[in-house]
């Protein structure tokens, strides 16, 4: 009687493992794909060394003047020298600790909110932080209460970009919720007004709205009562953004199963209770990824304030290269701003993808 002895597992066939087989399977599996691969490699060979040389190997990082920098590589010395302008604009250097503190506080608040346990009045504490934080941030950035006032025309750079984007999203949020609810309202007039507002604004380019805010808005006020330029831009952006937020939230509202409405009615909740306690929280939760997406879009659009003469990070390129000392360095400036904005936007879009996966599992029938 033969005794069964287990044989050691055989190795995978030689043609299925290793670098060569990976290449064969993924890059050279047919004549056409081989051709494409070779063309792609050639294109990479043309572009990458060129870029790498310009950005790193031929570039200057030392603190030297424009002339000493040379023309074959990038002159990062310029960006380094002007870095304060890129980040804070004309904010007085001795007061730069204030925006820095605002940022630190934001991080602290996010950390506190994240580490709270659900049974410790989490929602109330977060709501409190959301109300208090903007007040503190405004006092720190603008001044008042003993702090020296720093007018908004001194704000600029990345700081201004972030302020405009954040204020835009926060201020448009409540308006967007109201518009979304209005669009679903049973009252005809309210529904019509909301629809007209949303469709009207969404059909326009942001730049015409910014123009309107900067040239038409002042006509509504008496002469001499000049409104802050930044404030006007913020009003324009909020008007614009609230239409988009409204559509995002409407999407969330529509995703709520009918049973939720019926159940809320059945236990005798009135409209406000039903909306505030049952429908909106769920709708907002579903909308979070899209709200982040809309924030990303707003962050990109924020660069348009350049056109009405506010000095965000992009305007700084123009401003710093008009400086006689750094003439002709705008490519470096644009590339630098691209890298900064790309890193911010790419991490946000990654985050929004993560959120989407996280919330994807719910409300699936």
């Amino acid at each position, binding site marked *: 009687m033969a005794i069964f002895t287990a044989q050691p597992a055989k190795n995978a066939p030689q043609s299925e493992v290793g670098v060569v087989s990976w290449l064969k399977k993924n890059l050279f599996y047919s004549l056409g794909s081989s051709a*494409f691969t070779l063309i792609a490699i050639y294109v990479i060979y043309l572009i990458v060394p060129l870029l790498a040389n310009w950005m790193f190997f031929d570039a200057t990082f030392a603190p030297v003047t424009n002339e000493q920098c040379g023309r074959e590589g990038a002159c990062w010395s310029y960006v380094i020298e002007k870095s304060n302008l890129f980040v804070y604009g004309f904010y007085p250097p001795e007061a730069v600790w204030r925006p820095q503190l605002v940022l630190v506080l934001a991080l602290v608040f996010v950390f506190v909110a994240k580490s709270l346990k659900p049974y410790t009045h989490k929602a109330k504490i977060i709501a409190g932080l959301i109300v208090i934080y903007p007040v503190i941030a405004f006092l720190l950035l603008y001044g008042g209460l003993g702090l020296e006032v720093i007018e908004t025309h001194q704000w600029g750079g990345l700081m201004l970009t972030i302020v405009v984007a954040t204020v835009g999203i926060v201020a448009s949020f409540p308006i967007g919720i109201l518009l979304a609810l209005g669009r679903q309202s049973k009252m005809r007039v309210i529904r019509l007004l909301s629809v007209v507002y949303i469709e009207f604004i969404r059909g326009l380019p942001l*730049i015409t709205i910014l123009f309107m805010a900067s040239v038409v808005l002042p006509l509504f006020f008496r002469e001499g009562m000049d409104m802050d330029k930044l404030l006007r831009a913020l009003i324009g952006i909020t008007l614009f953004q609230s239409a988009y937020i409204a559509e995002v939230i409407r999407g969330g509202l529509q995703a709520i199963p009918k049973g939720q409405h019926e159940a809320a009615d059945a236990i005798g909740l009135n409209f406000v209770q039903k909306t505030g306690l049952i429908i909106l929280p769920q709708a907002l939760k579903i909308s979070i990824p899209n709200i982040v997406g809309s924030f990303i879009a707003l962050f990109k659009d924020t660069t*348009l304030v350049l*056109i009405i003469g506010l000095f965000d990070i992009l305007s700084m390129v123009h401003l710093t290269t008009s400086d006689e000392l750094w003439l002709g360095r705008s490519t470096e400036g644009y590339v630098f701003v691209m890298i900064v904005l790309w890193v911010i936007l790419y991490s946000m879009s990654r985050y929004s993808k993560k959120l989407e996966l996280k919330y994807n599992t719910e409300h699936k029938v």
Partner: protein
Amino acid sequence: MLSNIESRGIQTGFGFLEAESGFDIAEYLIDYSSTSTNLRVFYVGLINTLVVSAVGIVFASIIGLIVGIARLSNNWLIAKLAGGYIELFRNIPILLQILFWYNLALMVLPHPKQSFELFDSVFVNLRGIYMPKPITENGFVWVLVVLILGIVLKILLKRYYNNKKDNTGIKTNTLSYSLLLVVGLPVSVYFLLGSPLSFDYPTLKGFNFKGGMSLSPEFLSLAFALSIYTATYIAEAIRAGIESVSKGQKEAALAMGLTQKQSLKLVILPQALRVSIPPIINQYLNLTKNSSLAAAIGYSELVSVFAGTVLNQVGQAVEIILMTMAVYLTISLVISLILNIVNRQMSVKGR
């Protein structure tokens, strides 16, 4: 509000449209000079907006389709490159891209005297691209008429043979007929009429080129940036569409013995496009709206010349902004109308 306007010494009403504009515009497709009216400026800007949007839409669609399909390629390198392209250009603000390409074009391109040349008739320099301009003479219309006739006949012929194939299973190769109808016929008419078409070549006179047709660096960088940026969104829409086609469809197509190419063309793309087309049309609208950013580099489109220059001259902000907004609203309404029609046409016809 009216009293506020009056106290600032600004007139109201649309009378300013009849007034002489008094400034020059760099690019115009209809007759224009500094003695033209402000209304004329409006038309020039409007036409330029439509032209740059149309060019952008065509190129964005082509690039987007290629990149969207490439992203799902089995070829690892091609798929990664397409993904990298999307992640790179989608996450940089479009205004920054426009300014960057414009600035780069101005830095890289040579002065008119050292232009890059192609066949002695196309010149590239920092004032733009100069090309021969076709000049039509009497009778050229007939060539166009015959061309259109040929295309119509070709479509009818194709339909006839497709029907025949469906009914009898007999395939007919229509390529030679098609070539004859679409190429042969117009060309022979062209020569019969004695070549009623000539070209005006650009020539270097003094500091700049005269004659011919030219595309300014403003137009080129705007169209380029808009296409590159919008293409990333179109590519993503196409990818999402292709991924939405259930795997069973692909397997069934391959099981029936269709080749990769056939299954893509006959089974997957028709279903994918149904999902992709609505977001793509929305991107067309976005592209058109984004063309207003030309104001930053001075391409003579609507916002730049009308809501910019004219507004600065006459100061009638309310009227001008309203007219500008009306244009974009009309475009957006037309596009959503098209979207609705397309949606109705493409919706699944269940049985």
